[in-house]
């Protein structure tokens, strides 16, 4: 096999690909005021904020704040047999436990999304680890959230394996900039994490159709598990999904933001979480650098006489941020 040589920095710059240092130094540091970080780092706060702004989020069943409250888990879960337990301040999707159903009542045993059984004691231990800060940045004590388990829409069923595919949109100065769909694979163990082998598929801004995907920085046209073509899937309610993302920017005051949305079978698009430091893989998934789109948004915003509404911004992005290649 031919050696896969690295790309030259000049070519990368031409393509407008954003590097980690530039993202941190020129965008996150300049566009995101630090005091707004807790709004996105604390998922509990994000959820409250989103609900106030009229954005749809997975329903919160309950919050466990201290070890002695772990016993109340059953009370919070109630009749729900499917639920998700996650740390409010988890970093990088760590510590999320997805319960898919109840296996038996006595003893109380649930089933994880992977299909494995998990007893109520083990769930309690997982929660106590969350509380002790095992998954939070810097090991600070945390709280555990119990929330609605998304019944993901069959839209991506053919091109994902287990887990929940989500749609990541980067919003810059309130304008949706670029989007991708993250599709879990066997290799990623059902997680929508590109590092672990999930597929990132670019999304055409104008129409909300998936493009070809990328796995491990290589282009893929078909899902490795289902063998279905990745491109050409139309995301429904694309306009309202982009509007949601744009509103998140207003709601948090962050100028450079990643918005993760899941499509629920019954509830439609739900905001899963926000990220003040969204990753750069979205560029690989779209085969395009962020830089040129950022410049177009800058140009547009600098010539505006009034602030545009979220709907106007979403429409502008759809019209003007189509792929631009060199």
């Amino acid at each position, binding site marked *: 096999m031919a050696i896969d040589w690295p*790309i030259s920095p000049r070519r990368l710059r031409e393509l407008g*690909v954003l*590097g980690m240092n530039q993202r941190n130094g020129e965008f996150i540091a300049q566009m995101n005021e630090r005091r707004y970080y807790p709004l996105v780092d604390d998922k509990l706060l994000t959820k409250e904020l989103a609900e106030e702004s009229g954005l749809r989020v997975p329903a919160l069943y309950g919050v466990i704040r201290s070890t002695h409250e772990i016993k109340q888990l059953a009370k919070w879960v109630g009749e729900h047999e499917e639920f998700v337990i996650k740390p409010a301040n988890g970093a990088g999707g760590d510590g999320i436990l997805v319960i898919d159903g109840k296996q038996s009542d006595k003893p109380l045993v649930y089933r994880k999304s992977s299909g494995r059984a998990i007893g109520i004691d083990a769930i309690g231990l997982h929660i106590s680890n969350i509380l*002790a800060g095992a998954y939070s940045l810097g090991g600070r004590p945390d709280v555990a959230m119990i929330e609605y388990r998304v019944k993901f829409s069959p839209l991506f069923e053919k091109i994902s394996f287990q887990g929940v595919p989500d749609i990541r949109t980067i919003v810059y100065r309130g304008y949706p900039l670029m989007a991708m769909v993250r599709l879990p694979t066997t290799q990623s163990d059902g997680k929508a*994490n590109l*590092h672990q082998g999930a597929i990132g598929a670019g999304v*055409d801004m104008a*129409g909300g159709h998936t493009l070809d995907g990328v796995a491990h920085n290589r282009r893929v046209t078909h899902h490795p598990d289902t063998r279905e073509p990745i491109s*050409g899937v139309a995301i429904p309610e694309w306009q309202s999904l982009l509007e949601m993302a744009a509103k998140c920017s207003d709601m948090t005051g962050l100028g450079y933001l990643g918005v993760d949305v899941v499509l629920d079978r019954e509830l439609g698009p739900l905001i899963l979480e926000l990220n003040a430091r969204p990753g750069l893989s979205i560029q690989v998934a779209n085969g395009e650098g962020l830089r040129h789109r950022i410049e177009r948004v800058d140009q547009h915003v600098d010539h505006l006489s009034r602030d545009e509404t979220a709907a106007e911004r979403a429409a502008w992005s759809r019209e003007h941020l189509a792929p631009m290649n060199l």
Partner: protein
Amino acid sequence: MRRLHLLFVVLLLTAVGLSVAWYKYDTLGFPLTPDRETETWTVEAQIAVDPGTAPASVRFALPSDPPHYTLLDEGFVSRGWGLTTQSSDRQREAVWTKRNPEGNQTLYYQATVYRDQEEIQPSPYPGPAAPPKLEEPLKSAAESFVEDIRAGSADIQTFATLLVKEVNASRPDENIAAFLKPDATETERTRLAIRLLAIARIPARMSHGVMLTDEGRNLTPTTWLEVHNSRRWVPIDPRTGTVGYPRQFLVWWHGDQPALTTSGLEDVELTFATTRNLRDAVETAQLQSTIAESRLMDFSLLDLPIDAQNTYRILLLVPLGALIIVLLRNVIGIRTFGTFMPVLIALSFRETQLVGGVVLFTLIVALGLAIRFYLERLKLLLVPRLAAVVIVVILLMALISIVSHRLGLDIGLSVGLFPMVILAMTIERVSIVWEEHGPGDALAQATGSLVVAALAYLVMVNAYVTHLFFVFPELLLVVLAFTLLIGRYTGYRLTELFRFRAFKTLAQARRPEPTGNDRPGEPR
């Protein structure tokens, strides 16, 4: 604006750091490399006195600011004698006094000197010399002699050289034969040269000094001639007319008088003894700067107690390690566990050596991980689990030490120097990454940490680097400046050129061209 500001701070820090370091190197003589030794000389003046019964006093000229040399240290040994030192404009002297001296005694003066300058320092012009009063016909003879020499010389220096040569010629010019007894001593010839130079109004003086020889005993002072060329005193050998002092000539006193003036003594004898020493260059520079009364050295680490010094020898390397981390993470893009964990590991490598350190580190982390996975099955709470890992790590360290000692491998003993809490945290982090992101990620980050630690170690253990930062801690300002500069680096990381290499083909693949999928939304 922000860029300019940063640039200004960076330039300022660099300038201050480098200029202080340069001053210490150039002026105070601190060596840039370790283990440099400088040559110093110990000169001992022995004054053997045979006092009578009357109160005695001995005045002895002391070296002050000798050309080419710096006085590092001096001391007096004179039991039972009262000692004062005094200095007039260009001459220092020691005065020993005793009311009831008895028997032969020896007074000692010891000086340590160090050759530190090649150039003779300029000194103000003392004004033209007053011509000596001479009777005819001596006056005419001297003047015509001086005229002859003036005709054959270009400047003061060559004039003086020619004159000295004439005075020492085996068959001297008839004009000066009258001034010179055939058996004239060196001092007399020098004295004559000074008088003749005065006719030409050239200021000249006598100097006396000691030839420094290793293990030199019973040395006597040698006379030299100095003429002022309007910028500085130029030494001329009164025997040969050669310009300049020999390399190992230490000027002791100036003027046409003996070094010793005594009263109440029956007999006195002055001899010199010299020894060559090798001294640590840093120590020499330190002494020298104390003598130069450099304010800078009031803030030197070299004045701290030794154990504090040793602490700082290591501490001062941490910034360098931090800089390496910054470079490797932000410019190269290597991922590590914990930001500065590799620096701490690198510090402990100093004791274990590199290979031993890497082996021990890998061993402990691997064993610790195995235990950690077992503890995972026990479903412990986070803090007790961390504590359990710390305990296990320490037990492992003790075990490794004992086993390796049994096997006769001393390297295992130094494992105790690993920062065990850091190790325990590392094990915990590795296991979380292992579970959440898979073994691949965990191993990649662990290897990254180890590579960074090894690189940091290699830089930090370097004898030159250690020496440089300890003797010139102001260089840390340069490190700080460089770190600030990288803080604004927004270019690609080296690893990103690999990460984004798909763009070599991706960008072409995404060119707007209609495909079978009928993608909508091309630019309108």
